[in-house]
């Protein structure tokens, strides 16, 4: 995001707060592109679109909390990061479907980037937690398969995923958001 974008987005949001639908439509369109890039670097590809839509709805519902006298970017980044943490927690609750052997992917760039970022985050966890999350949540193995691969019991795999995702959320919350 360029500084000009942020300034312009602040002005568009101020207009939207006054009920200007055209400014708001344009703002949300530009924010959607920014959010797709933001989440593509931080989440598995299958979760990106849901996270973008969740965040757009959150921006809509909380638009009255933006103060036009202050820069727009920190406000936007804080909302996006909050939704990122939410999405990570949701990943811990969702049943993971086993992936078919071959999936057609248009471009690997976003997936590779998100894998690098997530890999960096997983390095901050205990090895058993990181391994459980990597196998079940990122690579699509069932809990039983991950149990067989790691030697951890199925219930320990679930506990490690739950605790690991909670710890990830804390790590993200305490780290400065670098875009």
């Amino acid at each position, binding site marked *: 995001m360029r500084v000009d974008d942020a300034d312009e987005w602040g002005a568009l949001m101020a207009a939207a*707060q006054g*009920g200007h639908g055209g400014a708001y439509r344009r703002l949300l*369109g530009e924010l959607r592109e920014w959010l797709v890039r933001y989440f593509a670097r931080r989440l598995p590809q299958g979760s990106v*679109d849901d996270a973008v*839509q969740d965040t757009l*709805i959150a921006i809509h519902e909380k638009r009255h909390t933006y103060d036009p006298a202050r820069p727009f970017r920190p406000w936007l980044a804080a909302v996006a990061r909050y939704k990122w943490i939410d999405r990570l927690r949701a990943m811990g609750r969702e049943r993971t479907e086993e992936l078919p052997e071959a999936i057609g992917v248009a471009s690997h760039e976003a997936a590779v980037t998100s894998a690098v970022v997530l890999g960096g985050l997983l390095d901050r966890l205990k090895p058993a937690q990181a391994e459980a999350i990597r196998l079940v949540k990122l690579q699509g193995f069932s809990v039983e398969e991950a149990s067989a691969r790691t030697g951890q019991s199925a219930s320990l795999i679930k506990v490690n995923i739950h605790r690991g995702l909670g710890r990830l959320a804390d790590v993200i919350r305490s780290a400065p958001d670098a875009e």
Partner: protein
Amino acid sequence: MPSERLIEDLAAGLVPVRRRTASRDAMLLALLGAVELGLFLLMGAGRHDIMLAMLLPSFWWKLVSLALLALLGAATALRSFDPAASPRRGLRWIGCLAGLALLIGWAIDAGHGGGGDLARRLDWRHGVYCMFAMAVLSIPMLIGLGLLMRRGAPTDRAGSALAVGLAGAAWGAFVFVFQCPHDDPFYIAIWFGLGCGLVALAGRLLVSLVTRW
């Protein structure tokens, strides 16, 4: 639903909004607090020997400590309802202030020649009543702050909810000071500390449940 349609729907249903400001929230809270304290005193719930109590250092110690804790808690909570702000630093200050208040209480107790029969001084029957009264008196402020938190956009829900709980607890205890006939620093530190701790914990758990966004 594709994002384009979502954007179209959000823009089509757009209505003007009133901006949230921390100063307006603070004024609403101050009004709520003034109404509660005014009603409490008008109902004759204040202690009858308040003029005598005002001569004791322990009365001012609990009144000023709790007022400062309530103010700091409310300021921390209100600030944290902005998505780009964190309550963590404020919570650390609240912890330091609470520790300092207990230290001053201990000094007052030592100067008072305390250290008698602790079980007698603890007077647990009255103590439990004090905790209950504090909890009841904290409810209006907890609800008020909870509603403001729902309207805001706190990105550290647990931290904000804890600040709300602490502010509500300190406010409830502050109002109760005008009724509580106990001036023993040991009694105050134990029962007020326990009461505030339990209300803060309840606030932390309940408020964070109802303020998801």
